[in-house]
């Protein structure tokens, strides 16, 4: 097998959407600083951790969704290091034995990205850097995280971005992650062939678009360094999103030795076959399966299916709409037009229902309105939903199919634009589209291009 040019691995931290923290009963949703804290998450001497059952359930759900092996017994460990955001100067995490291992996520190309492990750990507090001191808010201290580590098998920044997108899609389906308030952070390790794959770690990248940017920058930086005969040092760098660069973090003389021990305040947790089964039963139909089913059941385009299956609400919307309107067309229009709207607001916020969409798609399907009219209506639906059927009637937007009327308008357009006619006859295709555009303008977009095209052609030939 050919050696890749770039090797990329990701370590992703996902904040779990539980009501309370990993080891104490403080709420995970607080706003004013230090208002959701207790002796446990403040690391007060004498306090002791008690494990939140829901976090194990969520961890097993994600492990199963990612095709992992779930370990039958798990323990927690102490990772000791000193930093102002640590409430105990050790983090309770899992080291020797993770919750799940050997999973995978398939990219659209079919390439499988191996997930080496997945485990539970607690978040440190949030830290704000001031000049001479730092400000610490322990609301975040103890929030449950899942850490997920991939093998370094991604070979382009785009693959990394796609991996993250697929992962987020799965998280949305499982409902274990708060899409609005929750954070997903990733560390990326990047190495290039030219340096013999000397690994650089980029820490704390937020959002999957930033991941692609950061990796792209880093690959470029490393290549330029190699060209200048600089050595690529194994180091940790931070991603500066506003500046768009990675910069070296504190170079440690020796790597911090975390001195892992099992946490003796916590006990072994058994993950029985019965428990796994009960969790598996609660799993929703996930994107890969759903997409395949849509294609089989509705005969829709594979790419359309993949895109709409990525989001559970969009997929559910599609299935509703497909009961009433042409599924192939519906899938196509949902993918192209609805998703544009969803880039600025959620489906719930838009208040668009399957009825709205079904009505519209039926009109388009029957050719009762033109594509352009259809697009305009979609746009308006995004602002405030209404009945497309009523709207078309009220504003007289039906497609103009009356050939007499169209013949007249085409003739007018040809007469009014002689130079365009001349250009077209001289061989310029663009001039023809110009003429079509003129007729569309006269009809406010209601003319059907498939009807006026032959008319114009005939007129021009005369």
């Amino acid at each position, binding site marked *: 097998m050919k050696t890749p040019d770039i090797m990329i691995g990701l370590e992703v931290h996902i904040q779990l959407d539980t009501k309370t923290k990993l080891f104490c009963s403080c709420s995970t949703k607080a706003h004013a600083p230090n208002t959701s804290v207790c002796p446990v998450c403040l690391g007060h*001497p004498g*306090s002791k951790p*008690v494990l939140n059952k829901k976090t194990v359930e969520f961890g097993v759900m994600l492990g199963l969704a990612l095709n992992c092996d779930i370990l039958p017994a798990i323990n927690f460990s102490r990772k000791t290091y*000193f930093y102002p955001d640590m409430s105990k100067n050790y983090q309770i995490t899992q080291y020797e034995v993770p919750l799940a291992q050997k999973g995978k996520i398939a990219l659209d190309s079919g390439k499988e990205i191996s997930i080496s492990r997945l485990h539970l750990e607690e978040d440190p507090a949030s830290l704000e850097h001031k000049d001479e001191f730092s400000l610490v808010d322990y609301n975040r201290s103890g929030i449950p995280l899942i850490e997920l580590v991939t093998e370094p098998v991604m070979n382009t920044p785009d693959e990394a971005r796609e991996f993250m997108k697929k992962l987020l899609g799965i998280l949305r389906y499982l409902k274990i992650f708060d899409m609005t308030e929750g954070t997903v952070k990733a560390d990326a390790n990047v190495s290039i062939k030219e340096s013999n794959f000397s690994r650089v770690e980029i820490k704390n990248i937020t959002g999957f678009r930033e991941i692609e940017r950061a990796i792209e920058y880093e690959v470029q930086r490393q290549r330029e360094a190699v060209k200048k005969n600089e050595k690529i040092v194994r180091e940790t760098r931070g991603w500066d999103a506003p500046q768009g660069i990675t910069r070296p973090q504190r170079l440690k003389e020796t790597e911090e030795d975390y*001195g892992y*021990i099992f946490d003796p305040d916590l006990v072994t947790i058994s993950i029985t076959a019965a428990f796994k089964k009960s969790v598996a039963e609660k799993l929703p139909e996930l994107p890969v399966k759903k997409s395949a089913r849509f294609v089989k059941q509705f005969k829709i385009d594979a790419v359309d299916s993949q895109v709409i299956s990525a989001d559970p609400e969009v997929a559910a919307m599609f299935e509703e709409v497909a009961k009433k309107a042409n599924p192939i067309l519906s899938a196509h229009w949902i993918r192209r037009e609805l998703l544009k709207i969803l880039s600025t607001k959620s489906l719930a916020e838009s208040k668009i229902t399957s009825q709205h969409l079904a009505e519209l798609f039926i009109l388009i399907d029957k050719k009762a309105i033109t594509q352009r009219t259809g697009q305009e209506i979609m746009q308006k639906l995004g602002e405030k939903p209404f009945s497309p059927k009523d709207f078309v009637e009220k504003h007289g937007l039906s497609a103009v199919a009356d050939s007499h009327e169209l013949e007249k308008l085409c003739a007018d357009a040809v007469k009014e634009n002689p130079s365009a006619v001349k250009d077209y006859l001289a061989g310029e295709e663009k001039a023809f589209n110009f003429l079509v555009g003129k007729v569309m303008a006269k009809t406010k977009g209601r003319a059907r291009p498939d009807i006026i095209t032959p008319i114009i052609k005939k007129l021009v030939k005369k």
Partner: protein
Amino acid sequence: MNIREFLSNAKKGSIDVKEHSAKVLQELKKINKEYFYLNAMAESPGFGRGKISGLPISVKDCLCVKGMESTAGSAILKGYVPLFDATAVERCRKDGAFILGKTAQDEFGFGSFNANVGNGFKIPLNPIDKNRVCGGSSGGAAGLAKKASFPHVALAESTGGSIVAPAAFCGVVGMCPTYGRVSRYGLIDYANSLDKIGPIAQSVEDTAFILELIAGHDIKDSTSSTEKVDSYISALSKGIKGKTIGILEEGFGEGVDPALAKRVKDAISKLESLGAKTARISLPLNSKYSLESYYVLATAEASTNLAKYCGMRYGAHENLHGSFNEYFTEVRSKNLGPEAKRRILLGTFARMAGYSAKFYSKAGKVRTLIIDEYKKAFKKVDLIASPTMPIIAPTFDEVKKLTPLQQYKMDLLTVGPNLAGLPHISVPCGDVKGMPVGLQLIADHFNESLLFSAGGSYENS
């Protein structure tokens, strides 16, 4: 006057509990001036209504008492006033106990003589001979239990022997229950898999009374046991007829003062006369490896527990200057005592990459084997007997001459049950050169009742 008598007198009205409490506080202040048993004292006699209303209870400084400075004997926790009671304290308080104050201890429990006190703390003096140590790490608790003329139980704590050792040196009863029997919530950790809370008092009966009160499951401590709490008070009078006492071979050999050993052998004979049988028992793995296994695990865990002390959120602070590493290092270096530093270094080393397998992981596995060895022994005998300590309470000068390793080796008879989480009791059984000697009895997990039966029989004979 023991607890039973105190409560009966209070009920009858022959004692005015309020007046009594005021007198107790006065006596406490006097004792403390001379013997340094307390790091903090109640300012006024305060207690609620309940089963033990007005009963004086002292609390080892490592157990959190809400509103009372709790330092675990360390300068680094000066100023730490907990916002909650330890569960064991709460259970006493809600039944009306009069919480006297926080008793002196070795810093974080790091010692067998209570001579390793934190910077600025005073070393408590043996109640019988002021030139000698109290024993540790619950020195203040044992000293006060002996010295106080009022009915009193000291809540103490043991990691490697810190309940029974000072009890033996001070001539009182120390009872250390099974690991997990009493909730550790609110206990400032030394080593989480080894720490246990238990009572020290002048009688076996009093320790049984208090243990019944504080034992039992606590949802706030993941390692607390759901085993039902027996009636320890009724166990006191059950006797030990037909029970077999295993006389620990290694407990009477090299390193043990022969005169002391004789006292203990006499005490065992006494128990025989009360109906017990005896047998010889040997625990070779325990005698070879329990000390080392204990110190590796205890220091490894302790080094992580003490990482949180760095001048943030509570306890000793400095002015915020320098980088965080500089600040943390300054606070810790200034406020931790030499033994604390030594154990942090040992523990950090024992779990460092490259050494962890050889020390930390190894010690955990050796512990499993030692527990198995005890379990096998308890198939043959019901109790294991030995002296609690190999010597009588040494003088301060004698202690100064010991190297750290020699100090650790003083725990040779107490580490075994502590490492294995087994319940054990020390009962005074005579003296040598005027200094008390303790008989140590060990029982199987959750068999505290048998210890109370044996101790109770011995006490009443």
